[in-house]
């Protein structure tokens, strides 16, 4: 009745209200084409193919030949997800022996928000040397939109590709007690998501390592601005590691550079660490910045520390 009354008022006063109507229409059109900052969190670069050691672009770390990995241990793998009703293949790299995953301990590495696997390849090589070359299998993959993986870089697709990686490992015979997960920066989100939802993913990690994790999308927004702005003003992202970690019951190793100005210790890593119940350890590196912690700590000391945590 109220609605029909409003419609009647509108029709009888259309001439008078025409300008107001068009203004409201313009506002409605602008609002309905709502811009979101979500894609800003993802910073992918496409690749035709992966070059690994032959890649000439910028990389996450500058490694010496000491951490080389023989070609026989490098395996290109892929696993499917559905993105917008279309099947796309997630591109991954497994370093180790794919035929012995059923008996090996495997580290699933979730990389940061930048570029693609070629950028993070030096990190994967480092982890392949934890406890000696080949002691642990290491799987890394590109989220949709990154490198040679097609699709859209979204929060949902990031989780879907992690799920698919876990499914692939499970089909190769891996069990949860031999799965470790490590997330760097953005990669901390899928690790907390999987570890915080035990039973909802094909496998659950028995230990997790978070390097330079971010606390939540909202804190990222509030850290960037001077005003205490609600996250929803700018993003739809639901990533909230500081809350998810409260549900994680497996041991955590937190590594963070004290000079990380992108994701600060105080506003990000410390919050995640403080909210984690149960077993946890931390390694704070003086002078370490967002990307440089392994270098500042010393590559060998860095992987030895992670290996010690895994081996406990």
């Amino acid at each position, binding site marked *: 009745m109220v609605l029909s009354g409003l419609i009647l008022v509108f029709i009888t006063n259309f001439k008078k209200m025409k300008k107001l109507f068009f203004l409201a229409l313009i*506002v409605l059109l*602008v*609002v309905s*084409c*709502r*811009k*979101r*900052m979500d*894609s*800003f969190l993802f910073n992918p670069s496409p690749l035709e193919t992966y070059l690994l050691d032959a890649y000439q672009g910028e990389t996450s770390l500058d490694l010496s030949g000491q951490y080389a990995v023989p070609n026989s241990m490098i395996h290109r793998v892929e696993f499917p997800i559905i993105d917008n009703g279309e099947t796309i293949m997630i591109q991954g790299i497994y370093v180790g022996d794919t035929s012995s995953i059923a008996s090996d301990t495997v580290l699933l590495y979730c990389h940061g928000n930048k570029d693609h696997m070629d950028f993070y390849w030096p990190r994967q090589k480092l982890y392949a040397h934890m406890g000696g070359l080949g002691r642990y299998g290491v799987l890394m993959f590109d989220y949709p939109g990154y490198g040679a993986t097609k699709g859209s870089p979204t929060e949902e697709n990031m989780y879907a590709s992690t799920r698919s990686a876990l499914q692939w490992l499970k089909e190769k015979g891996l069990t949860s007690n031999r799965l470790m997960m490590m997330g760097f920066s953005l990669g901390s989100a899928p690790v907390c998501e999987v570890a915080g939802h035990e039973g909802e993913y094909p496998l659950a990690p028995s230990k997790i390592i978070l390097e330079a994790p971010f*606390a*939540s999308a*909202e*804190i990222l*927004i*509030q850290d*960037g*601005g*001077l*005003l*205490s*702005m*609600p*996250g*929803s*003003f*700018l993003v739809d992202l639901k990533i909230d590691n*500081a*809350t998810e970690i409260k549900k994680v019951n497996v041991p955590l190793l937190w590594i963070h550079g004290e000079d990380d*100005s*992108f994701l600060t210790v105080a*506003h990000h890593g410390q*919050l995640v660490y403080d909210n984690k119940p149960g077993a946890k350890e931390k390694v704070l590196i003086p002078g370490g910045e967002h990307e440089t912690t392994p270098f500042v700590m010393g590559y060998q000391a860095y992987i030895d520390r992670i290996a010690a945590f895994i081996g406990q």
Partner: protein
Amino acid sequence: MNSFKIILILNVLIFSFGCAPTRYVKPLERGEHSVNAHFGGPVSKVPGMGTIPLPFSSIGYGYGLSEDLTVSGNMYATSLLFGVGQVDVSACYQPWKKDRMGITLSPALNILVDFYTGANRLWPQLDANYYFDYSIYRSRAVEGRNPKRINTVYAGISNWFDPYLTESQGRKNEQFWIPSLQFGHQWERRHWDYQLEMKILAPIYSNENIVVDYPSLLGNYGALGAYFGVHYKF
């Protein structure tokens, strides 16, 4: 996403309090109406485009309640792009005037509502400006009222207040007061006024570790803002 879009959204994020210049440097005449539009924002280095003020825009309406008090309301177009309604209601009060100069105080309440989630914010604001009419030309036709041309310079301080004590995850809000300094010029005509203003945004806060390169007169602190405004009075 190209660089321009990234920088635009970062400006919305980082300097959302710097999206408009002074609305009314001095009050309207009693019973006078004004509609206005403002453009400009923080000056940023945009790759491929140079150093430019980013195009925030707003439209508003003002009404002279008395010779010393004007009330106004403004709507911000840039926030609408994010599905966030941003309006302000404000007043311009002139507590002191002598000959060609005066001081005005402008309290305002900035209201933001996310149309999709209902999240909202109220940010109070208090601006103070000193103005000086350095050139006044009266035509015979309008002697005594509505001078034909007045040129005015002004300077002042704009203060935003963020009264929310805690942020996400219970963190303490460390930026309760965000000041900016402004300097401007107004060309006042019988019906049309034009305004140029420069701001030093948030001069007490560091501009380091922000993805965008903000030129500032104060090195690693604050940012520079540039604005253009136009008023039509009737």
